[in-house]
């Protein structure tokens, strides 16, 4: 794809994903997001003198699973030390794989049919986290910083793509598809907002057919939206530089989400000399056939297969359905949709509930059984529950599990079918415009007025909570 005036952008991505292990990469401390600062630390992940790393076998399993999913070659690999000083890195070196990564080569096919090559996917450890005091609370202008080492030593896999990406939309599709794969392999929860997946983008521009231009690396993009915006901004900046007669300087750049700009972090001349050398405290990793076979056998279906299967069940899917399909496949909840479709439920309804309501409670997905999901959808489709009520039931199922019929009963949803309750409430709103306006402006006391009216009409069969839910859904 070319951008304006015949320029072409060339993008390669480095995706860092935290692995979903119980413990850290080299010690038995919990790999857990959101704990009190410096409570998941020990001599090893604090880098105390005399401590030594011992590799977590689960991290290797998950790295290999990623490798298989990306069609990589899994081979003899070693660990190196990457030496540089930084306060969130307790040993002042990072243990990483260098010239012999566990996964090399491979590719990822995107839904639009394009293929992005994978150069490598290697294991490394995460650093701690700094917060900055004074100034604006950001790194620049701060007086002092505080360091929490809970994240120090959390296992990461860094997946490096080839420079095959030609548009920001393709970059986003790649990151999204990769995220789906990471979730499908069980390697990651893919939560970008918690920093469990972070992306660096290498961007350059050229006229099609020309040799590669000078690239800039944009660090630490924490959402798909930032990724897309940052790449577009950066490509445009480089085009303007070149068109203005200047040259692009090879450098590392920082993305400012608020300003919507990239800025220089470090020039090539300021680049560190990392002095990589073999980590003498760890031994070589040589996954034998049996180990590889065990991981390969444990791999489930990847998003592409899920997508194909799901797509086969939809007749003439609408653009909205296709968008919802991507969401459910990437979140790994397409099994819910398939079960509901197999029970002959309405595809648009099923996809909407899965891609919106279920997606919003994805962190508790284990609480929602397929059966409960299908039942809730049935209830909505038959008119037993309103849209709002279905959402409420689904969210409660995600929160604490259970039986949708019982939840509906406990909430009084089934005492009056929602369609009829909804119609009653709608009629009352029209009849009492002043009360409705006051309620809408925040006077909660008016809810009681409407409940009283509904009770009068339904002879007490309605449920107060359900009335409030109906009112709120219209607010």
């Amino acid at each position, binding site marked *: 794809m070319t951008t304006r005036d015949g320029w072409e952008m060339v993008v390669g991505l480095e995706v860092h994903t935290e692995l979903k292990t119980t413990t850290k990469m080299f010690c038995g401390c919990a790999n857990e997001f959101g704990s009190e600062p410096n409570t998941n630390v020990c001599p090893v992940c604090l880098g105390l003198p005399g401590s030594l790393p011992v590799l*977590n076998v689960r991290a290797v399993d998950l790295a290999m699973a990623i490798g298989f999913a990306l069609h990589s070659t899994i081979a003899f690999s070693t660990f190196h030390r990457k030496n540089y000083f930084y306060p969130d890195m307790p040993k002042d070196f990072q243990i990483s794989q260098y010239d012999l990564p566990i996964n090399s080569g491979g590719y990822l096919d995107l839904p639009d049919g394009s293929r992005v090559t994978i150069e490598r996917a290697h294991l490394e450890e995460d650093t701690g986290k700094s917060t900055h005091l004074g100034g604006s609370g950001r790194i620049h202008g701060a007086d002092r910083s505080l360091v929490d080492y809970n994240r120090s030593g959390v296992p990461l896999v860094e997946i490096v793509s080839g420079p095959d990406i030609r548009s920001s939309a393709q970059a986003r599709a790649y990151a999204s598809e990769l995220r789906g794969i990471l979730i499908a392999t069980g390697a990651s929860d893919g939560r970008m907002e918690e920093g469990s997946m972070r992306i660096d983008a290498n961007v350059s521009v050229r006229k099609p057919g020309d040799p590669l231009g000078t690239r800039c690396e944009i660090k630490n993009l924490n959402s798909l939206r930032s990724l897309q915006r940052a790449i577009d901004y950066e490509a445009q900046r480089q085009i303007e530089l070149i068109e203005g007669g200047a040259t692009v300087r090879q450098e590392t750049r920082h993305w400012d989400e608020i300003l919507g700009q990239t800025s220089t972090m470090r020039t090539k001349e300021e680049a560190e000399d990392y002095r990589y050398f073999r980590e003498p405290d760890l031994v070589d990793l040589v996954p034998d056939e049996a180990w590889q076979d065990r991981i390969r056998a444990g791999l489930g279906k990847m998003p592409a297969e899920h997508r194909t299967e799901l797509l086969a069940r939809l007749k003439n899917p609408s653009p909205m359905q296709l968008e919802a399909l991507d969401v459910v496949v990437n979140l790994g909840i397409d099994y819910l949709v398939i079960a509901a479709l197999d029970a002959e439920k309405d595809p648009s309804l099923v996809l909407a509930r899965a891609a919106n309501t279920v997606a919003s409670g994805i962190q508790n997905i284990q609480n929602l059984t397929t059966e409960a999901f299908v039942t809730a959808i049935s209830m909505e489709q038959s008119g037993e529950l309103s849209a709002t009520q279905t959402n409420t039931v689904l969210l409660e199922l995600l929160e604490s599990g259970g039986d949708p019929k019982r939840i509906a009963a406990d909430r009084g949803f089934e005492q009056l079918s929602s369609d009829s309750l909804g119609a009653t409430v709608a009629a009352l709103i029209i009849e009492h415009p002043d009360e409705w306006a006051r309620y809408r402006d925040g006077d909660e006391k008016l809810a009681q007025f409407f409940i009283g009216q509904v009770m009068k009409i339904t002879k007490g069969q309605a449920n107060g909570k359900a009335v409030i839910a109906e009112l709120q859904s219209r607010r």
Partner: protein
Amino acid sequence: MATPLRREDVAKVAKLARLSLSEAELDEFTAQLAQVLEHANDIAALDLEGVVPTAHPFGLINVVREDVLRASLSRDEVLAMAPDAQDGRFAVPRIMGEAP
């Protein structure tokens, strides 16, 4: 054959290693390190094309541990070691640049 060690090499290396040297120390260290490197030139000069480097004395492989929790240290114990701490964290003077 490696080039002889210069004073500016030592200054550069000291900076990489986060050490500051006085002018006099710089002279002294340059002379001493040059002497050691001169000795090391007997191996720098060897033709070892094709020899496999040894980083580990023994060829152990695949030493791993199970993904099982072990007790962490108590935070009080951890922060008791800290030269400066605040709000359950290690405190440091301002950080000038982002991590590479």
